[in-house]
């Protein structure tokens, strides 16, 4: 049996008195594109943080490629594409600077880029088709280009697992398609992609599977099954049903 890329077992997390994750269990195989669906406050970001080892679990466990998150961090397995609103877009860095940050875990303590690093950054930029914009300040990119810049950082990092937090928020339809194609091609190379989203219409084309989260994992399966109105009603309440009809 192969080891799953991400295996979360009975993960429980509290913030003070608030229960954020309630014994969530799920596993994702390598090379899958998986959509993580849930309302605000359903625990999507908490689950991401747990996978990255940013928070301590009260109970349960997370394994990345069979190893604890601390191990995975050292080898730079997990790449992270933050939500747009979590980034200071006025920060005086070029696109290339940001992608180079993917290499820091592999560099000496002053993070002086070697020729290998430069090459990895070139390739990553080429891969997401941002080579021409490499010298731009990151904030001068469009919404979709910004996402691709951070995906490039993950590629330069050599991440085999990529976590994307709401990648389609504030992104126009065409860029959305570009990003989807990019993510599909990354998964074809064997990378595992986990996308948190409440944007349901992109899921069936993009994802191999979907997970419904409501503090616990309600359902995991192929998107067409998970996205059935009755199932969505479990995670979002009945108004989603009514709006769709």
């Amino acid at each position, binding site marked *: 049996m192969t080891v799953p890329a991400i295996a979360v077992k009975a993960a429980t997390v509290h913030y003070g008195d608030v229960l954020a994750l309630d014994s969530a269990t799920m596993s994702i195989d390598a090379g899958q594109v998986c959509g993580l669906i849930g309302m605000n406050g359903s625990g999507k970001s908490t689950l991401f943080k747990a996978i*990255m*080892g940013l928070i301590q679990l009260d109970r349960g466990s997370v394994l990345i490629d069979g190893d604890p998150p601390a191990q995975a961090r050292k080898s730079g397995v997990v790449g992270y594409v*933050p939500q747009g609103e979590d980034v200071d877009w006025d920060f*005086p*860095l070029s696109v290339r600077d940001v992608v180079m940050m993917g290499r*820091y875990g592999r560099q000496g303590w*002053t*993070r002086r880029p070697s020729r290998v690093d430069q090459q990895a950054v070139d390739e990553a930029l080429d891969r997401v088709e941002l080579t021409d914009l490499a010298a731009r*300040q990151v904030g001068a990119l469009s919404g979709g280009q910004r996402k691709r810049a951070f995906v490039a950082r993950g590629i330069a990092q050599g991440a085999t697992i990529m976590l994307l937090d709401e990648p389609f928020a504030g992104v126009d339809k065409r860029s959305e398609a570009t990003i989807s194609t990019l993510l599909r091609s990354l998964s074809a190379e064997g990378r595992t992609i986990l996308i948190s989203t409440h944007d349901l219409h992109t899921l069936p084309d993009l994802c191999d599977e979907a997970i419904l989260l409501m503090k616990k994992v309600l359902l995991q399966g192929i998107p067409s099954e998970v996205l059935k109105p009755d199932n969505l009603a479990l995670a979002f309440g009945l108004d989603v049903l009514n709006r769709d009809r």
Partner: protein
Amino acid sequence: MNPIEFLLEPLSYDFMTRALTVTVVASIVCALLSCWLVLIGWSLMGDAVSHAVLPGVVLAYVVGAPFALGALIFGVLAVALIGTLRDTSRIKEDAAIGVVFTTLFALGIVLISVTPSQTDLSHILFGNLLGVSTPDLLQVVMLGTVAFAILLLKRRDLTLYAFDPTHAHAIGLSPRVLGALLLGLLALTSVIALQAVGVVLVVALLIIPGATAYLLTDRFPRMLLIAPILSATCAVVGIYTSYYLDAASGGMVVLTQGLLFGIVYLVSPRHGIIATRVSTFRRRQLVTQRADS
């Protein structure tokens, strides 16, 4: 007086050369650090730490320990107290900072008032550039070199920490350690700068140069060049002005920094207020022209 005499006359006094050296060193190191403080949004934290070191410096004087050690201890204490207050009560961070640093600063003032000493300890408050001794100068140059070297060598990690601590964590670096490093350097530079401008005005050297440079460039490496150069220039201009006007030297240095910031705010080619107004005006005109035709 010809210009050369104008420049050389102050330097004929030893106390002036020492004052100039201390101010330039402090300005450069503080300016470098200010680039990160301004981007992270830690200006208030810089204000807090630079004030909170006061009791540490006074106590260090009393027991005869190095000023830097006392400052470091109280700088760290201030940060720890602020964090604890924020995390364990309903007080928000800005209020926590306000409570902690003013209380520690007040403690420092009280300690100064009850400490018998030959040197006037109130110089710590407002700086005493003209009374910088040779050992003081050596200490500032040594600490300044250490802080400068650490900042330069770790600049990429610090920038990553400022930009995206989550990513730092994801690739196995410790945001906590990097944050602590930055705060430690903040306490260290506060000691360096208080010789020059005094505790009250240290925060100016820790914020203004970075803010000015940020209005001038979209490239962080360039900020790290622009901020120290401008800051050192302001230091020299400020010291000379204070010499010829017979005005407070620390105040003059900071005043020069502030004036330069004001000018840059107005005329910076891309982020200055005039440039942005003009481009908004042009855009509107274009739109109206199109609507008319």
